């Protein structure tokens, strides 16, 4: 009887390990592919130069890299404050008011909407109105994708703050606003920042919304009101082109983009880990 139990145990364990390995194969497969192909195409030129015409070597994705950074920054400047403030309202103030219910519902819906639709909406509402594609529109689209994510994660972090801490604040004769600002937010800060970084990592890789808003640019954009290049869009354009040099550039771009996302993710997790110590 004992050996039957042991065999069953061993069989199940093997199945679990096998399943895990299968699950990990795509991850390492993708990473490996990108690293291998992208590494070959990486060079200093890549980081410093603008794209060159097809057939020419020595081109780079400097404008796409900077463009991604700029638009992600715009998105963060819009999305993070709005997201955090909305989350504070949802957690700390009347949880059953029509506004709270409405915002929660909207957040749930927005997290499920395909990002391309966000892009189309901004295209109609901003690009057409303004008459041109722009980095601002791109940043705005990314912000809209970011906001529900930040509301969600910030709300979770705020809920984690023990109610006892709030009561302690009120009992000292500290007003609700000050309690939230000076006690609760600092307590939840690390978690909120982590959530924000993860949201940033997520939108850094969005392609579809940018297609309709920032469009893309072979050159440096001179202002935010012009179309701007971004890594995902550039990768898309190069990968779907027939030129070998551009394919290589696409691999390099992919490697840079994936590295950016991984770095953001790891930093977020690192910050989270030292919090629970």
């Amino acid at each position, binding site marked *: 009887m004992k050996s039957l139990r042991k065999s069953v145990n061993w069989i199940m364990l093997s199945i679990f390990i096998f399943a895990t390995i299968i699950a990990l194969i795509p991850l390492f497969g993708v990473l490996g592919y990108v690293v291998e192909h992208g590494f070959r195409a990486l060079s200093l030129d890549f980081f410093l130069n603008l794209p060159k015409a097809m057939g020419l070597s020595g081109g780079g994705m400097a404008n796409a890299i900077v463009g991604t950074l700029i638009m992600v920054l715009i998105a963060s400047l819009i999305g993070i404050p709005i997201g955090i403030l909305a989350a504070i309202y949802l957690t700390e103030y009347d949880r*059953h008011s029509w506004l709270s219910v409405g915002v929660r519902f909207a957040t749930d819906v927005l997290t499920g909407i395909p990002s391309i639709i966000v892009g189309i909406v901004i295209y109609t509402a901003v690009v057409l109105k303004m008459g041109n594609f722009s980095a601002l529109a791109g940043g705005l689209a990314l912000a809209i994708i970011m906001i529900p994510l930040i509301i969600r994660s910030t709300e979770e972090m705020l809920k984690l703050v023990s109610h006892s801490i709030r009561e*302690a604040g009120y*009992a*000292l004769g500290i007003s609700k606003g000050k309690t939230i600002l000076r*006690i609760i937010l*600092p307590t939840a800060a690390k978690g909120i920042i982590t959530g924000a970084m993860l949201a940033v990592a997520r939108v850094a890789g969005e392609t579809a919304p940018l297609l309709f808003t920032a469009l893309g640019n072979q050159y440096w954009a001179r202002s935010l009101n012009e179309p701007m290049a971004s890594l995902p869009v550039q990768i898309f354009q190069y990968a779907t082109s027939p030129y070998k040099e551009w394919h290589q550039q696409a691999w390099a771009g992919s490697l840079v983009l994936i590295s950016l996302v991984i770095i953001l993710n790891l930093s977020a997790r690192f910050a989270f880990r030292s919090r629970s110590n």
Partner: protein
Amino acid sequence: MGQSLSVRDLEAWYGSNKTLKGITMEIELNHVTAIIGPSGCGKSTFVRCINRMHETMPGTKVKGEIILEGVSIYDRDPVALRKMVGMVFQKPNPFPSMSIYDNVIAGVKLNGMTNKQKLQAIAEKSLRMAALWDEVKDRLNYSGMSLSGGQQQRLCIARALAVEPSVLLMDEPASALDPIATMHIEELVRQLKVNYTILIVTHNMQQAARIADSTAFFLNGELVEHGPTSDIFTNPHDKRTEDYISGRFG
């Protein structure tokens, strides 16, 4: 210094559940008054009404009068009231994002005081009153969470005292602590009553017997008996009181 505190016909609800059914009580100044009674008898609710914390929970209602220093507490701004009536909770709750020093002065600093010398003086005075100064004076900038449970609770007491209330409410302050830490808190309460009026809720009758000058016995939202501790524990008037304190309850 302690001022008068009277409660008249206090009723309180949690939603549709009536937890206090009309409490009338005079609370003596510069005294330790213990509130004892079985779980659910309303003692925590009672105490939380006095600093209007009861109202911060949704769905609560209150009726009746509580007079502090000649003025009804419902005629005062709740935030201002809570500077006159401090509270210490069952589970020690120092602010996790703040150092020991910042924790102690939190109530004072976040309400506008900026003078550094004054803040330092207040911090030292409060920590001394809470019998914690000697243990933490060399590590005031350490996180509040780095202290033991008993020390954290004394830190919370110091924090409450820094605001200079006249009344101190303690809701089972030692129930989360080990016996030695509990003894420290009890000694502290004895020393504090010289300058403060203390109301302490406790489910530990022996603790009430040890430290309280007068004891009030609550049962099912009613005040059954209130008198000097020596009377309550040697010769209570009401049979229900006697049954409860001798452990012959249900």
